[in-house]
C-alpha cells in the first residue's frame, strides 16, 4: 500500500469510526423514557430494585409514595400525571378507576395485614400459638394492656383493611357486611371502641413503621403488613430490641396483593417501558429477591414452602402451614359508606391546630394557595371528596403568624369545636380575609400552638399541629421552643408543610423531636395540606 493510499484508508477508517460512534449514540436504546409511578409507602424498601432496572434500561423511574386509598382518589380524578399505580390492594384500582384508564395490572406480591405485637406483650396476653379475634384485641386495648397504632382507614390500605376486619368481626362474621350492619348500633358501638383505642395514626404504612421504631417505648403494637413487620423485626434485632409477634385476627384478616398497573394515555414508549419493568418485577430472580424481603411471591396461593425461614420466622408468629382465610370484603357501595362513616363518626376525633404563615413573602402565590388549601379542609363539601370531613368531637384551631402572632389575643374566635359545616366555613372565610405582611416567627408560634394544645385537647382526640411556612424564622426564640418540647411528654406531633424558601434545617429538628413529618408543598400546597391532615 502506498503512503497516500494508506493515508486515504486511515481517513476513511476514521470517518467510519465517527459515523459508527454517532449512529451508536443515536440508537443507544432510543431516547430515555420517564415513568412516574405512585405507590403505597410499604413499597419504598423495594425502590433499589426498580432503580437498578431503570439504570440498565435507559429509563427514569420517579416514585411517589402515598396511601393506597389516596391513590384510589387520585385515579378517580384522572390519575394526575402518573404513568403507573402500585397500591397495596387491587380493590383500590377498581374503586378509583372509574374512567377505565388502568391497564395491564398484575399482582407483584402478597402480604397479609396483621397486628404486630411486642412478643412479651403477646405472651402475657396468652396470644402465642392460638387464634386471636378482634374481641380479644379490643379487650386487651381497653384494659390498657395494649397500646397500638394504625394508619388512617381513609388514607391507607392497612388501616382500611383492619377497619373492614373490625366491621366483619363485630357484625358477628356474617357472610358479608352490609349497609344494615353499618346502621346497627350493636356493631358500630364496638367498632368505635376499638378505633377509639388507636394511640397514634398516620397516612401511610411505611411512615407508621418508622414512627414505631422511633417511639418503641411508647407503643406495644402496630397494624401493618406482615412484610413490614418482618422489616421492623430485622431493624429491632439489629438494635438489640425485642421483636414483634404477628397476630392474624381470625375474624378480620385481609391479604394485600400489590397490583402494579399502567395508566394508559396512548404513549407507546411509556407502555413498552412499563411492561418491561413489570415483567422484570415478575421475573424469577426478582420474585426470589422479594421473597427474601418478606413478601409472599409463590406462583400459587400464599404458600411459604420455598421461603427462607430466617426471614419468615416462626418465633415472630409466622406459621408457614397455616391456611390464611381473609374476610369477604363488602360490596363497593358499602365500602364507600363505611369509609365515609369512619371519617365522620367512628374514628378518634382530631384536635388540630393550624399554624399559618402570613408573612410578607406569602403575598404573591403563597397566600392564595394557602387559602385554597384551608378551604379544601374546612369547606365540608370539598373535604368530603377527600374523605377528610370533620368529626362531631373534633377541635380545630387556627393560629396566624408573621413576626408575631397575629391573632394571639383573639384565639377563641379562630376555633371551632365540632364539625358544624357553617362554623367551619365561617373559619375558612375569616382566613380568606387575612392579608400578608411582615417577618417570620415560626418558633414562638409553634410553641404557642403546643401550649394551646395542652389546654384544648380532650382525652379522646388525637392531637396534631400542622405548621405551614414559606420562609425562615428571623424573629422567634428557637431555644425556648426546644426547651418546651423537651420538658413535655411530647405526644403532639408537628407536621410541617414547606413552601417557598422554607428552611428544612429549621423545620426538621421540630418535626423529629415531636415525631411528626415534613411535607413538601412547594409544587402543590393544597395536596400537601391534605396529606398532612390525613396523618391526624
Amino acid at each position: 500500500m502506498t503512503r497516500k493510499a494508506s493515508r486515504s484508508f486511515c481517513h476513511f477508517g476514521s470517518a467510519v469510526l465517527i459515523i459508527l460512534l454517532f449512529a451508536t449514540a443515536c440508537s443507544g436504546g432510543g431516547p430515555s423514557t420517564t415513568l412516574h409511578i405512585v405507590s403505597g409507602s410499604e413499597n419504598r424498601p423495594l425502590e433499589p430494585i426498580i432503580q437498578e432496572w431503570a439504570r440498565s434500561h435507559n429509563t427514569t423511574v420517579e416514585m411517589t409514595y402515598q396511601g393506597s386509598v389516596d391513590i384510589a382518589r387520585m385515579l378517580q380524578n384522572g390519575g394526575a400525571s402518573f404513568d403507573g399505580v402500585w397500591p397495596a390492594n387491587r380493590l383500590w384500582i377498581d374503586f378509583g378507576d372509574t374512567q377505565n384508564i388502568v391497564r395491564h395490572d398484575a399482582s407483584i406480591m402478597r402480604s397479609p395485614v396483621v397486628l404486630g405485637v411486642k412478643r412479651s406483650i403477646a405472651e402475657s396476653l396468652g396470644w402465642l400459638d392460638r387464634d386471636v379475634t378482634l374481641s380479644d384485641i379490643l379487650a386487651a386495648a381497653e384494659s390498657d394492656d395494649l397500646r397500638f397504632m394504625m394508619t388512617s382507614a381513609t388514607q391507607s390500605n392497612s388501616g382500611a383493611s383492619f377497619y373492614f376486619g373490625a366491621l366483619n368481626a363485630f357484625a358477628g362474621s356474617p357472610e358479608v357486611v352490609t349497609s344494615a350492619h353499618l346502621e346497627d348500633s350493636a356493631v358500630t358501638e364496638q367498632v368505635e371502641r376499638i378505633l377509639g383505642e388507636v394511640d397514634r395514626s398516620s397516612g401511610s404504612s411505611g411512615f407508621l413503621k418508622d414512627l414505631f421504631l422511633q417511639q418503641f417505648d411508647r407503643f406495644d403494637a402496630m397494624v401493618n403488613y406482615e412484610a413490614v413487620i418482618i422489616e421492623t423485626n430485622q431493624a429491632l434485632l439489629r438494635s438489640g430490641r425485642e421483636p414483634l409477634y404477628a397476630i392474624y385476627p381470625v375474624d378480620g384478616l385481609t391479604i394485600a396483593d400489590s397490583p402494579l398497573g399502567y395508566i394508559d394515555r396512548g404513549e407507546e414508549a411509556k407502555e413498552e417501558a412499563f411492561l418491561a419493568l413489570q415483567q422484570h418485577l415478575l421475573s424469577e430472580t426478582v420474585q426470589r429477591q422479594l421473597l427474601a424481603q418478606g413478601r409472599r411471591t409463590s406462583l400459587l396461593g400464599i404458600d411459604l414452602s420455598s421461603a427462607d425461614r430466617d426471614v419468615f420466622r416462626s418465633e415472630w408468629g409466622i406459621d408457614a402451614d397455616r391456611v390464611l382465610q381473609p374476610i369477604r370484603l363488602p360490596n363497593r357501595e358499602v365500602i364507600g359508606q363505611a369509609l365515609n362513616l369512619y371519617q365522620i363518626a367512628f374514628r378518634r376525633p382530631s384536635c388540630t391546630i393550624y399554624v399559618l404563615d402570613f408573612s410578607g413573602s406569602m403575598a404573591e402565590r403563597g397566600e392564595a394557595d394557602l387559602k385554597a388549601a384551608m378551604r379544601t379542609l374546612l369547606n365540608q363539601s370539598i373535604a368530603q371528596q377527600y374523605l377528610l370531613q370533620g368529626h362531631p368531637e373534633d377541635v380545630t384551631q387556627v393560629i396566624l403568624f408573621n413576626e408575631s402572632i397575629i391573632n394571639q389575643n383573639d384565639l377563641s374566635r379562630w376555633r371551632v369545636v365540632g364539625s358544624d359545616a357553617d362554623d367551619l366555613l365561617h373559619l375558612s372565610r375569616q382566613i380568606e380575609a387575612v392579608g400578608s405582611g411582615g417577618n417570620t416567627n415560626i418558633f414562638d408560634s409553634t410553641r404557642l400552638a403546643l401550649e394551646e394544645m395542652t389546654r384544648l385537647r380532650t382525652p379522646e382526640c388525637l392531637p396534631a399541629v400542622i405548621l405551614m411556612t414559606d420562609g425562615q424564622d428571623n424573629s422567634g426564640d428557637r431555644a425556648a421552643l426546644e426547651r418546651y418540647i423537651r420538658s413535655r411528654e411530647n405526644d403532639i406531633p408537628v407536621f410541617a408543610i414547606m413552601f417557598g424558601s422554607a428552611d428544612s434545617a429549621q423545620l426538621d429538628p421540630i418535626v423529629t423531636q415531636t415525631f411528626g413529618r415534613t411535607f413538601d408543598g412547594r409544587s402543590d400546597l393544597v395536596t400537601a395540606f391534605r396529606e398532612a391532615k390525613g396523618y391526624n
Partner: protein
Amino acid sequence: MNNRLAFVRSLIVLAFAVFVLVVLLPTIIEQVTPRTLTPVTCFIGSEKDDFLKNPEVVRLLADRYSLEVSYSRVGSIEQAFIDSSQVDCLWPSNTSALEIYRSQHQQDFDSGRISYETIFNSPIVLFSWTPLVQALVDQGLFVVQPEGYTTVDTTRLIELLTRTPKPTWAEVGVDDLFGSFNVITSDPTRSNSGNMFYGLFANMLAGGQVASLEAVRENLPALRQYYENQGYMEESSGILFERFINTGMGAHPIIANYESLLIEFVVQHREQMDTVLSQIHVIYPTPTVWSSHPLIARTDAGKKFLEALRDERLQQIAWEQHGFRSGLLGIENDPSILSLTGIAAEITSVIPLPRAEGIIEMLDYLRQS
C-alpha cells in the same frame, strides 16, 4: 490541508451512503413491494386478547390471509349495545350478545350482509384446591370420573348455595375453613363468566331446564340473595382467576370461571405444570353452559377474518396455547396434546343459557339491589 480535505470528502461520501441505506432504501423497497395487508377492526372480549397478541397468530393472519387485526376490548353484552358502525366485526364471548345484536339488525342477518359463526367455545367450570376437592370427593359432592376428570352435579351444587341457612364448610366436610360454603364468581353485572354462572344458576332454579322469562322472573329473589351475599366481586374473569391463583385456598376456596384460563396459565408456566396441577383442580358442572365466542362479521374485511379463523393451525394454537375449544364442526380438541390431567376430552352435558331477554332482566334486577 489535503489530508483534512480527503477526510471531509470521505465523511460526506459515507454519510450519504448511510442516508441511502437507512432512509431511502427501505422506502424504495416498500414502494416496490407494498404491504397489502387488509386492516380489520373488531370489538373483542378481553379473554381473547392474548390469542390475538400471540406472534404466531399475527404472522399467520398476515402471511396466509393478508389481514392485520386491530381491536378494542369491550364487554360482551356492551358490544351489542354500543355503536358498531365503525368496526368490521364483533367478537363477544356469549350468545346473548349475538342474540341481542341480531334482534337489532335482523334484516342484515337475513340478507346475509351480516354473517356469524361460533369460533371458540369454553365451558364454565369450577376451580378449587386439592385439600378441599379431596374433602368434597370424600363427601360425594364432587365425583372423579373414570376418565380422570372431576364433575359436580349442578342441581346439587345450586341446592347447597340456596339452602337457608347456608351450610358451613365444616358441614360439607371441609374442616380447614370457617364460614359458609360458597362459589365465588366475577361480578355478573360487569363480567361475562359471572353472568353465565348466574344463567346456569337460573336454569337450575327452573328445574334443570332452560329458564323461560317467567321462570327467571320467579327466581329473581333467590338469585339476588346469592348475589348480595358475595359482597365485593372482581370486575373481570381474568382478575378473578389471578386473585384465585395469588391469594390461595383461604381467600378463594372455589371459583366459577372459564376452563380456558387454567389451560392458558399452565401453558404459560409449563416448567411448573406439575406443581400447578397437583394443587389446582377443574371441576365440571353437569350440566354446564358454554361460553361461545361467535364472530359477527359486518363487512367484507370482517368476513375475511371469519374465514381465516377457520384455519386449522389457528384453531390448534387457540386450544394448545390459550385453552379455547373449537366451535367449528369437525375440529377435535385432544387434551392429551396438552398433557394436562383432569381436563375432559369432551363436554357432553351442556344446557343453553336462558334467552337474552331473561338475562337482561336478571342483570337489571341485580344492578338495582
